[in-house]
């Protein structure tokens, strides 16, 4: 794989359409997300998406392709049914909360989908595709459809913004009029979510819907301000997520979600550090510094106690430290043990290399030269198995020596770390100087 040069046109072609799709999805979802937050129906999108998946599955079971007119008809009918049920459930909100009803709708739709799929040959992959989606393979032709559909939904929301926003703020009144507007809201919401879930998957659509809207509400009060911030941050996060997915070789949807969450965390931090007047900001900065220092000390304290209590269990902090510094367990091993450890590391790599060499040999023989006869293949397989077993043996030796080193590090590392974290904690618990303290935090507090 590594020897092949990548062409930038390939990369651009590969990431251009997904980025455009992200921007298009953000356009409508960030706005709908604001409604969703105000209505407190966070998981309504999942329920509607699952109902539309059920519709597509029923259509498929009756012999219609999901992309056909009949397929769309079924999907849309089920989404409309969901919209109607959600609109009717509004009066429930006062007594038990609408989320309970949304959750029930979701699990029932999922369960029925599973039962229908069970009767279908090759049904599972169809529903999987419906709910997982793949933003990486969005086609430009689909993009055009999304732009048209979301344009129409957006226009409806612009024209009907007064009654819809009033309803979302809980001031829409009751009666048939409110019910109809509510129903129309859910239909438009269902249409947007259904189409985007099929292309981008549930995870990503949820992320487009909620995170930009939350970031917007953190910084602005008006819908316009919230939207502008949500769109801006969302677009930036999408570009960053796609770039990270490419550069770090990560699955695209998952990488985007994590970057969006990172943006939210950063936004929360910025809001905390920049909100209020100068005194409040200063207090927040100090609190944050103390919280960070306290958190670090708590992790150190817990890790040290864990090391003392269970030296041969997993020690995440020590492992990370050893990996980062490249020191390994050597300081706590005798000269002889150190040599054994080095041998085990070298031999494990050698056996792995041998097994891989044999595997390559066998793979090459599949299509070039004389084919191997079955006994040669068996012989190769048994050598490969032996090498893999021997490698496992060497890894076992490494693990045993590491455990022995940990056993010794138990007191030498554990006790000073406990002492250090306790001393740090004591310093941290002293009251902050109140007057004349600006600028960086003194070292002794950190």
């Amino acid at each position, binding site marked *: *794989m590594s020897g*092949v*040069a*990548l*062409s930038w046109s*390939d*990369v651009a*072609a*590969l*990431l251009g359409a*997904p980025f455009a799709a992200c921007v298009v999805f953000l356009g409508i979802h960030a706005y709908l997300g604001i409604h969703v937050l105000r209505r407190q129906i966070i998981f309504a999108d999942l329920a509607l998406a699952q109902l539309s998946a059920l519709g597509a599955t029923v259509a498929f079971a009756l012999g219609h392709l999901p992309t056909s007119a009949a397929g769309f008809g079924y999907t849309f009918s089920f989404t409309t049914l969901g919209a109607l049920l959600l609109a009717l459930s509004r009066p429930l909100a006062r007594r038990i909360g609408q989320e309970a009803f949304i959750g029930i709708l979701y699990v029932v739709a999922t369960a029925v989908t599973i039962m229908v799929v069970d009767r279908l*040959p*090759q049904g*599972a*992959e169809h529903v*999987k*595709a419906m709910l*997982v989606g*793949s933003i*990486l*393979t969005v086609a430009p032709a689909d993009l055009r459809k999304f732009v048209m559909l979301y344009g129409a939904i957006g226009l409806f929301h612009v024209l009907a913004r007064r009654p819809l926003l009033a309803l979302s703020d809980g001031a829409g009144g009751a009666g048939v009029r409110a019910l109809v507007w509510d129903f129309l809201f859910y239909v438009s919401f269902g249409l947007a979510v259904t189409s985007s879930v099929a292309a981008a998957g549930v995870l990503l659509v949820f992320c487009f819907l909620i995170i930009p809207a939350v970031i917007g509400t953190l910084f602005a009060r008006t819908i316009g301000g919230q939207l502008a911030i949500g769109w801006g941050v969302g677009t930036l996060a999408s570009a960053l997520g*796609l770039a990270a*997915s*490419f*550069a*770090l*070789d*990560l*699955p*695209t*949807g998952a*990488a985007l979600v994590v970057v969006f969450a990172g943006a939210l965390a950063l936004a929360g931090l910025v809001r905390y550090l920049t909100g209020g007047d100068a005194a409040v900001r200063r207090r927040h900065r100090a609190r944050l510094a103390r919280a960070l220092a306290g958190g670090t000390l708590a992790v150190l304290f817990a890790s040290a106690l864990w090391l003392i209590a269970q030296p041969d269990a997993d020690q995440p902090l020590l492992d990370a430290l050893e990996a980062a510094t490249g020191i390994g367990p050597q300081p706590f091993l005798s000269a002889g043990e150190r040599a054994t450890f080095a041998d085990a590391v070298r031999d494990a790599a050698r056996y792995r290399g041998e097994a891989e060499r044999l*595997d390559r040999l*066998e*793979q090459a*023989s*599949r*299509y*070039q030269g004389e*084919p191997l006869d*079955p*006994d040669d*293949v*068996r012989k190769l*397989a*048994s050598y*490969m*198995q032996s090498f*893999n*077993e021997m490698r*496992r043996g060497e890894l076992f030796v490494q693990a045993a020596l590491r455990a022995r080193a940990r056993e010794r590090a138990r007191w030498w590392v554990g006790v000073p770390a406990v002492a250090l974290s306790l001393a740090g904690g004591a310093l941290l618990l002293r009251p902050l100087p109140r007057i004349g303290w600006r600028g960086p935090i003194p070292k002794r507090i950190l």
Partner: protein
Amino acid sequence: MRRAAALALGLWLTLAAGGAPAADRLRILATTPDLRSLAEAVGGDDVACDSLVPPGVDAEAFEPRPTDLVRLRAADLVVRVGLGYDAWLDRLIRQIGEPRFYRGGAADVDASVGIPLLEVVGQGVEPEQGHAHGVANPHYWLDPANADTITALIADAIGRVAPSLAGRAAANRMRFLEALAARIAAWQERLAPDAGAPVIAYHASWPYFARRFRLHVVGLIEPKPGIAPSPAHVAQLIAQARATKVRAVLHEPFEPIDTARLIAERAGARLVVLAPSVGSLPGTGDYVALIDHDVETLAGALAAK
């Protein structure tokens, strides 16, 4: 009362008349449709075969149902792929607790025993990395020459649990293998002009098929099943496909097709949907039809290029 008795008698007669041959026959329960088809070839009219995984369902994502326990308990022989591919069978067997189905028990057939395995990893029976490829690559039935070993194990097991059927099973098997040998020669001849043809596969299902028919699998779209490939991986595959002049992208009906189509389009290769098991595509109703379908489809696609 008399009417009820008459009804019961009638019912009993119907059941006895319809059910007698099936009840007499040896019941073989295979995990996959591929093994079921091979068991049918060996057992002929003496056996009633069934598979736990229905045709067209991904065996690696299979979820057993309560009725499967009933079918398992009624079986005389159980045939499994082994190598961790159908590890869920062990849970079912533990649940009904019949020692004859335990590994090495009289009614247990692990069809992978004696197969020249490819991509051997190690000893573990449980799937590694949350994936059903444990000890070695489990898709060995896609090399038709391996039917020899698989049918030998099944014929042995039939002789073990029903000695009176041993002779007929051995004869059936010989007839089947003779016919299959002629087909294998024809299939190899069909794909001989394409020996060494570079292809990309969606999933690591084809090493045995590739070895028999001399294909060069250059890369895999989804190296870890269930996790969507990253854009870097897709871009690498496209570049590699162009550099090695890949002619076909092998796809399986269970997997999402978008990425495979994208790679095929950008690399100028053909997208070929092959059946990884019996019944997963129309026209793959039994074992011979399965291999025939895959060879013909692939040969057609490579010739059109």
